């Protein structure tokens, strides 16, 4: 974990770090990764990963319409929209 790795993962996360706290964040992440490296000591041969404590298959429900189209309600909460779409800066020139 160094500054270069941190700036790569920051870009992957779509975050920009300002220069003053870049050193601090790098140091923090280094310590956290060192801390979680304790897991190396555990013998996990042939142990199936556990993603969720319930381990049950997701239940399905019948495909009935349960909600009305509330397009206006959702669009009006957007930072920028017109009557049909969420608006973002132009993507295609």
């Amino acid at each position, binding site marked *: *974990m160094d500054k270069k*790795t*941190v700036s790569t*993962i*920051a870009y*992957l*996360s*779509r*975050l*920009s*770090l300002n220069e003053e*706290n870049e050193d601090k*964040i790098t140091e*923090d*992440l280094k*310590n*956290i*990764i060192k*801390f*979680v*490296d*304790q*897991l*190396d*000591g*555990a013998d*996990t041969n042939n*142990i*199936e*990963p*556990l*993603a*969720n*404590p*319930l381990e049950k298959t*997701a*239940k399905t*429900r019948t495909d009935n319409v349960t909600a009305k189209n*509330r397009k206006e*309600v*959702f669009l009006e*909460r*957007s*930072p*920028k929209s017109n009557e049909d779409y*969420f608006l*973002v*800066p*132009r*993507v295609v020139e």
Partner: protein
Amino acid sequence: MSIQYKSIKELKNMLNDKDISHTELVQETFLNIKNNSALNSFITLNEEESLKKADNLDNNPSSGSLAGIPIAQKDLFCTKDLKTTCGSNMLSNFIPPYSATVIENLENAGCISVGKTNMDEFAMGSSNETSFYGNVQNPWGENLVPGGSSGGSAAAVAAGIVPAASGTDTGGSIRQPASLCGISGLKPTYGRVSRWGMIAFASSLDQAGPMARTAEDCALLLNEMCSYDEKDTTSIDEVIPDFTENLNSSIQGLKIGLVKEFDLSKLDNDVVHVFEESKKHYESLGAEFIEISLPNITLSVPTYYVVAPAECSSNLSRFDGVKFGKRCDNPKDLEELYIKTRSEGFGDEVKRRILIGSYVLSAGFYDAYYKKAQQVRRLIKNDFDSAFKSVDIIMSPTTRGAAFEAGSKSDDPIQMYLEDLFTIPANLAGLPAMSIPNGMIDNKPIGLQLVGNFLDESRLLQAAHNFQISTDWHLKTPSGNKS
């Protein structure tokens, strides 16, 4: 008649006996909220709507089990038409178009949601110091943290402003603040309470639960919070018992496990003393103690700090400035819109966890970190499964100490993460766990943690209630013993 520090049960009786009207109760609650504004426990108040509901209840009595009971809702639950920030600048303007299932369930039972409580940003923190809306003050002392992330909920109950609050617990966020504020809090079995409408942090760990003055009140709240919910694919479709039913049954013969691997000698003598006194008390109630071994439990905190950030980095990718929440000013293109919005919208701790998550999930590291942590998670769960073959509940302190001063741990993330040493294992294994007040250290409360087997909340509540009807730690208040 003062309503401060009254339990749900007491307020229900007062309302039934017409000692107070619903409107008076709500008015008095808002007076208490305003008199305690220095605690900063609320982000948004819901006064007008609350008074309307109270007036309606005065005119049309309701049969709801919690009719007219004021409740503070953690600002992580979506509340229809009421601002929901999750403690973040990112959602400073977010007004949800729907309510979380938990909110609907409580309101259908008659609860009046008086406001939204302050919390660590996106529930990431153990001291309420990461909130965009400022620190919450612990009512037990100036400059003391209330714990986190449900710090505002815990402080509001501890100050006697409201008898009940909702909380959420991903690694201890109900139990740790309950311990530091001297109240009772329960994290149910994963899947017992619907996560629909809860703003997600780590989806395989998050669980909502009640925070109140007593275990009995927690049972009353849990009765209404639980439901099978088709809208949450991890909601458990099992019979929901009446959690108040066995509260008064004796715990004679209850087998309580003590975890060999929790090295209590590293804790302050005062903390150990308080814990030993509670053990003696449980023995006097007829419980029996058995030493158990959970060999992998010491790896819980490192496991958590891979799993939780991984899920967080994925969940928080939805905050991109496009569909709701904050958007930066004048982005030059779409990528800058994403980056600037997220960089301005999130605070340092949230960024730190997103970065760790992106790192442990990135190509080349996935197996070494994320998969490894999930494997250790199974080992931890297996340890609990074996232990519960010989014991009914597992007991430990909830926290390593009483409330600490603001600023004293915020520079060192790992010290802060270790705050949740005793609470994290129950989240990893999906087990129910609660914290109840069991002593005082330098005039600050501290809590006892009880962890139960899968879906066995009733037994936890029974053990906690038996403790509370024979002790008075839960009756202590920042302004003296409750009469």
